């Protein structure tokens, strides 16, 4: 059973990682806890759901639709709620992002209603036996999409000019600007990428749990923040590994100890890690890992 539970942990962790990557990228370039990120995840799930229900699209179209729409939402968020807000006051942008959270959640409740909705079966359910574990077609699909996405993102940040610019801005805004990096553009691109990934993560979560609700973003937002702290603020590799770690801890404690103690165990581990490694597992504020 332990192997099967590890697979469960991996699945849960993959969605935490995808959300945390967005948080950490935005934190890296703006030093901002972007609260609305969880709601972008929720919007992505609903766009995926409606692409499937209304247009009868397959899962790939749903993923693409959510990615594009959430990317656009990210761009809109920068233009409408980040740039106009004073950077001099450290709390202003945070408050603005809380505002976006409330607006997105209430819009979703207004449009879709306050209830959970079933995510239709878009991937044919089949079970495969791999040694001691049984893995389903849905799980394989989600893992493949998550791993490919993380690999592309890693390559983008490590190997492209824009990736280098993002890392430079994360290191130091002023120096990057002096060296000719267009900081505004970097911030915009970071938001678009982070939001697009959150959109995909939302659809994957809908597929994994077979339902979506306007309240799904809040819980994920909190977990994403925990993962970001665990992995190291602004550290993409940290977010990837931290997400998987959190998923594993949650599943194993739910399976062997009990759900009521789960959060206690999770946060106790988090506190211990931060006591011994205050900058997180992979160090803070660099996007390339330490």
């Amino acid at each position, binding site marked *: *059973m332990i192997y*099967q*539970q590890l697979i*469960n942990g991996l*699945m*849960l962790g993959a969605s935490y990682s995808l959300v945390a990557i967005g948080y950490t990228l935005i934190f890296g370039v703006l030093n901002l806890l972007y609260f609305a990120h969880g709601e972008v995840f929720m919007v992505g799930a609903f766009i995926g759901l409606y692409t499937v229900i209304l247009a009868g699209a397959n899962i790939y179209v749903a993923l693409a639709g959510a990615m594009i729409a959430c990317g656009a939402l990210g761009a809109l968020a920068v233009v409408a709620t980040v740039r106009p807000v004073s950077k001099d006051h450290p709390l202003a942008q945070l408050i603005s992002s809380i505002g976006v959270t409330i607006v997105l959640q209430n819009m979703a*409740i207004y449009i879709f*209603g*306050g*209830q*959970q*909705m*079933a995510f239709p*079966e878009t991937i044919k*359910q089949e*079970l495969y036996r791999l040694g001691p574990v*049984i893995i*389903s077609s*849905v799980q394989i699909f989600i893992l493949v999409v998550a791993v490919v996405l993380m690999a592309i993102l890693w390559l983008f940040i490590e190997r492209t000019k824009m990736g280098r610019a993002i890392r430079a801005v994360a290191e130091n805004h002023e120096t990057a600007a002096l060296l000719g990096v267009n900081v505004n553009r970097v911030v915009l691109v970071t938001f678009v990428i982070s939001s697009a990934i959150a959109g995909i993560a939302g659809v994957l*979560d809908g597929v*994994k*749990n*077979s*339902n979506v*609700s306007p*309240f*799904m973003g809040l*819980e994920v937002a909190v977990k994403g923040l925990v993962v970001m702290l665990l992995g190291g603020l602004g550290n993409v590799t940290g977010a990837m590994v931290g997400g998987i770690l959190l998923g594993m801890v*949650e*599943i*194993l404690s*739910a*399976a062997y100890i*009990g*759900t*009521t103690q*789960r959060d206690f165990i999770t946060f106790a581990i988090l506190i211990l890690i931060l006591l011994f490694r205050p900058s997180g597992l992979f160090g803070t504020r660099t996007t390339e890992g330490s």
Partner: protein
Amino acid sequence: MRFSAMFVTAMSVVAFAVAPIGGAEAATVAGPKVKLGCMVPLTGKGAEWGQGAKASIEIAQQEINAKGGIGGVPLEINCYDYQTQEAEGLKIINRLVERDKVLAVVGPCFSAVFEVIAPQLDSRLKTSIISYCSSKPGLSAMSRWALRNTLTSDKQLTPVVGAWVKEYGIKKAVIIHDAEDAVSKAEGAAILPGLLKSNKVEVADILTYRTKDTDYSAQITRAKSLGIQGIALGSCYQNAAAIAKEARKQGLNVPMVGGACAGAPGFIDLAGKAAEGAYMSTAAWLEDPRPEVQAYVKKIVAKLGTQPPYSGPRSYDIVYGLKHVIENSGVTNKPGDLASDREKIRTGFAALKGFPGVAGEITMNEVRDGAGSTAILKVVNGKYIDVRKK
């Protein structure tokens, strides 16, 4: 001739059953309107229950006003959404009692909210709350102002678990329940273990989750490893549906049985094929061919687009029950008589016996809970059927 004789007999029985209460004098209801309160959860885990109730309460109000109101005075019902949250529920009951000055309150739904409001009633609020969907045993005993027109979940579940065990030949089962929701916890931790034991079913393990959880893979993997033949749920319909789907995803195709909060139409909508074969309890059965039930179903489906869970018919019946009590227990509806009117409604409603309703007769028992029979629902081809009728 035979039909009319039966009709006259039936009407006399109803007339006897709903005769003026406790010897109280019928008084003239005064004032520009009769004001009742209503508490509904329109979002959160109780959304479907609250939406079904709100639409039903509005239908009852329209029908009553179309026929001249209560004692000739139009009925006004102030409805508020408490988002299935205890703190919101407390705020709203205070608003209804102290600011809106309602005669009685229809609601709240959910035992978790009911049990935080009930202790406030005796000492301070002194206004009846009449729940249309709270079924954790023992709650109405917390206050003489706390009433429920619904069967407690032990009474609802007893026949359902028996039928489920019998049909599927269950010998070993696992219980999965919500560790936070009041009625689900009562079902999972106390009622279901006892019922399974009395049906000679071994409880292999009791697993929990938290209301806002969306991932149940750990619990299902554990359940699967135990070699069980069934899953008993202390769970609301959204979580129950997600658990059913996760079980299917992991290839654990065993039948489920669920209690008061799980047996909503939303369970089938959300779980789809994974719902097939599940047994659920309920405190109303809307396939009932009685014309008054079908007339209600027609109206509620036209308004809501779908059938409500039992909160709908039970809340509809409460509004009519209150009309009957107000008209027959000497309620004056004068501002100066508010306290005594509230007291009359409390004693009047608590004494209701055999009052006809679409969810069945309202008969309040000695601890102010509803009594009567329950249906045994089974999901067959995406619909609930009552297996008692087969």
